[in-house]
């Protein structure tokens, strides 16, 4: 198959005893509870069955003794990641088991060993160079001492989370004619049971064995030649792996899928563009729905109490020209509440109707509880911060959190409404925010300690000019050109802290230029984020004053995480082509 295992020992007899001891000692700190027997240990990651058979009997005797000795001293196996563990992830803050850290999307770590008092002394502990080129948008997972992450071009790998030493590596062999929109990126994986799950740029979903990186199953979800791809980190819910498709620049028909984790069999598909006879179909002119876009390329969240998946959707296609697709274009740029078991729609809320500016609403929707109300908050690409009732989907508030010129009024529901003159013209005119939006894929964080929502935001305006294009399968389908307006320079980048109760911006930090970094908040009173200049920064969560920074040497496009091994807290971030882990001296 297509998996060069560069780091696994290759010689048949090569120091089996040494391997066994290596594997045990390098996974130290993991709870011994999960070791049931020596037999279970022998099925561990580096003690391969084939190698075992080929080993000499005499070696075996000494191996058995060594393995036993090692196991007694330092047990190594990892437990299965069950749905229950994911639901209760706050009980094991040493692990980071989903894209956003937990199902709520808060990206908040309960760890406080690294805090406002000592973060100034934080230092790099290890760096892992992936060798990949382009933007690294991954959020790693950490489970029981092992870090799982992805790099560009669908490379996945597992590292010893204490040292950064690789355990396995999987490289997807991609066809030469894939259609990534915006870089050959991947945002991370999901983990469930003994497998990790990777969506690929050729629109496959792949289950990899968490201990070896071996392919367990590999299914094609859609035809990449027609512009479908996966860049999103999937979400594991119950026994299902939920994933949304990319391709809003190619006139795809968007969908959110779920697959059985054990078999790869598709359980349900929700088309984000309704077909004939389905509610919402009338919001599309003629046959425009067939190429209506509405991708779902960022990871949603989950509410176990109501068994609802909240998944956001992206722009209608063509992304920047509304002519030919008159109507609201449901369910583009919406938040969808889906029944996790059936994929049936409970409610939806459309942020930008009939979008002509590429303002995908794919930002992570974050579950926030306030004054007994179950809410869901999203800092949207269109420049507004929305708070909805997550039970009913009704809008609670929508407030501006960045520079915008497209809306001056609100509709009857309180939703910001577009000005007619904001539409792109043939000659081109300036609209704020630009097509990249006030924010984008970079994950926000909600800190329950400060009660604030932190988001990376930019003030940049673009000139939008129409450029009608015919639809051609697998071919870019924008319908408009846009580029940064020179008049609107300089473009500004911020980390902003928003009070969800009022929509008020309580604090902000201005970066040198706009950044694409995600955010993390921790119980140590800290918020972490990065910048385009390559700095990874720890902020005081209340004042947003930088307390520490490290120059990584590459712009940050990824989301930070916190985890702990051996009782020591680490903070990790991908930047440039590498993953960095930091800790106290």
């Amino acid at each position, binding site marked *: 198959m297509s998996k060069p295992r560069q780091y696994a020992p290759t010689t048949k007899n090569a120091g089996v005893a040494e391997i066994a001891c290596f594997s045990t000692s390098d996974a130290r700190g993991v709870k011994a509870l999960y070791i049931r027997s020596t037999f279970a240990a022998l099925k561990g990651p580096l003690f391969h069955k084939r190698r075992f058979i080929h080993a000499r009997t005499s070696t075996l005797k000494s191996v058995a003794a060594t393995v036993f000795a090692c196991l007694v001293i330092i047990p190594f196996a990892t437990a299965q990641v069950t749905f229950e563990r994911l639901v209760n992830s706050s009980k094991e803050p040493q692990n980071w088991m989903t894209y956003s850290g937990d199902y709520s999307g808060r990206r908040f770590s309960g760890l406080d060993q690294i805090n406002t008092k000592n973060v100034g002394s934080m230092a790099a502990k290890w760096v892992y160079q992936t060798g990949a080129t*382009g*933007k690294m948008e991954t959020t790693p997972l950490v489970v029981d001492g092992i870090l799982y992450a992805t790099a560009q071009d669908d490379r996945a790998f597992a590292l010893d989370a204490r040292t950064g030493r690789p355990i396995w590596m999987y490289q997807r062999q*991609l066809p*030469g*004619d*894939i*259609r*990534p*929109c*915006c*870089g*050959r990126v991947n945002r991370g994986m999901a983990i469930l049971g003994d497998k990790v799950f990777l969506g690929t740029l050729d629109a496959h979903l792949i289950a990899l064995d968490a201990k070896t990186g071996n392919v367990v199953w590999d299914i094609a979800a859609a035809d990449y030649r027609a*512009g479908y791809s996966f860049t999103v980190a999937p979400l594991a819910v119950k026994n299902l792996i939920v994933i949304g498709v990319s391709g809003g*620049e*190619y006139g795809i028909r968007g969908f959110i899928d779920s697959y059985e984790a054990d078999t790869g069999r598709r359980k349900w598909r929700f088309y984000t563009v309704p077909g004939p006879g389905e509610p919402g179909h009338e919001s599309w002119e003629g046959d425009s729905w067939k190429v209506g876009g509405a991708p779902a390329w960022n990871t949603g969240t989950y509410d176990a109490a109501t068994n609802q998946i909240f998944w956001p959707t992206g722009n209608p296609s063509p992304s920047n020209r509304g002519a030919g697709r008159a109507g609201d274009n449901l369910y583009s740029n919406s938040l969808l509440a889906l029944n996790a078991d059936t994929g049936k729609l409970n409610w939806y809320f459309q942020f930008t109707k009939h979008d002509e500016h590429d303002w995908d609403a794919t930002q992570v929707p974050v579950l926030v509880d306030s004054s007994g109300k179950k809410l869901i908050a999203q800092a949207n690409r269109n420049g507004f911060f929305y708070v909805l009732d997550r039970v009913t989907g009704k809008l609670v508030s929508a407030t501006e959190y960045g520079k915008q010129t497209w809306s001056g009024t609100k509709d009857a529901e309180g939703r910001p409404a577009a000005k007619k003159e904001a539409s792109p013209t043939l*000659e*081109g005119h300036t609209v704020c925010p630009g097509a990249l939006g006030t924010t984008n894929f970079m994950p926000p964080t909600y800190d329950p300690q400060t009660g604030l929502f932190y988001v990376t935001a930019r003030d940049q305006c673009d000139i939008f*000019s129409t*450029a*009608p*294009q015919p639809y051609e399968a*697998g*071919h*870019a389908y*924008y319908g*408009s*050109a846009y*580029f940064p307006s*020179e008049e609107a*320079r*300089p*473009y500004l980048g911020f980390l902003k802290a928003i009070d969800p109760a009022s929509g008020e911006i309580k604090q902000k930090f201005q*970066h*040198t*230029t*706009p950044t*694409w970094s995600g955010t993390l908040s921790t119980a140590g009173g800290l918020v972490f984020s990065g*910048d*385009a*200049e*390559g*700095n990874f*920064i720890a902020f005081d969560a209340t004042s947003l004053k*930088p307390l520490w*920074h490290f*120059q990584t040497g*590459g*712009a940050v496009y990824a989301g930070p995480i916190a985890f702990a091994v051996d009782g020591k807290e680490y903070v990790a971030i991908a930047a*440039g082509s590498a993953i960095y882990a930091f800790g106290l001296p």
Partner: protein
Amino acid sequence: MSKPWWVVGIVFLAAATVAQNPLADDAKAARAGEYEFRINCALCHGLGARGGGRGPDLTRAVKKHAHSDAEIFQVISNGIPGTAMPANGTNGQGVGMTETEIWQIIAYIRSQEVKAAANPSGDAAHGKELFYGDATCSMCHMIEGKGGRMGPDLTSVGGSRTREALIESVRNPSRRLAWGLTESTKEFPQEYESVTAVTADGKQIKGVTLNEDSFTVQLMDSGEHVYLLEKNSLKSFQKSRESAMPKYETESLSDKELEDIVAFLIGVGAK
């Protein structure tokens, strides 16, 4: 992924054998090409192909890197090494343009050439005298290794900027600051912003930014000293988008003199 050399060779030969645009003088193709141009090219070359301040004016009949249709096809397909011109399909936005679309764009460019402005009328030799003499351009700008360091090197600017952009940058240098260092992973290049820093011991440093982040700044003053400063150790730090370059009004540099300097720059840039 990089292709084997023989694949590149075959593609090159196949394209090179088409000497002429199959869509030449096809008005409909030129119209389609205009839209493709907007989406793929206008960011640098401007909405009307007359240069956007970042890429050359393509309405000039004489181009620096390509003359025939086949050569333009090559440039669009493969980019120009050593310049900002990328190869088709390498900007991370999918598979790039089809061959037909590239020919449509070439049809569009050709349709615009008719409206191209005449060649510069200035006296390049006099422009060179002014550049190194009375106009004092060379105090801060270098051409072919001769001149100052504080401003951008202008050796190739005449080949990559429009005449209008050159004139504007002399008459109104602050309107659009020049780009400096481009970092491979960073979205925006550094601009030639003006900086005034006061060190802890009260020393004032005025110069242009070589690079900057939230915590440090690297700058050059008019004496061409390079300063590497930590922002939190400074008494004050201010930057401005008012260019360090003086604004040349017609009283100090006549339109005729400016045309001469532009002719000199375009002459050097065309080499």
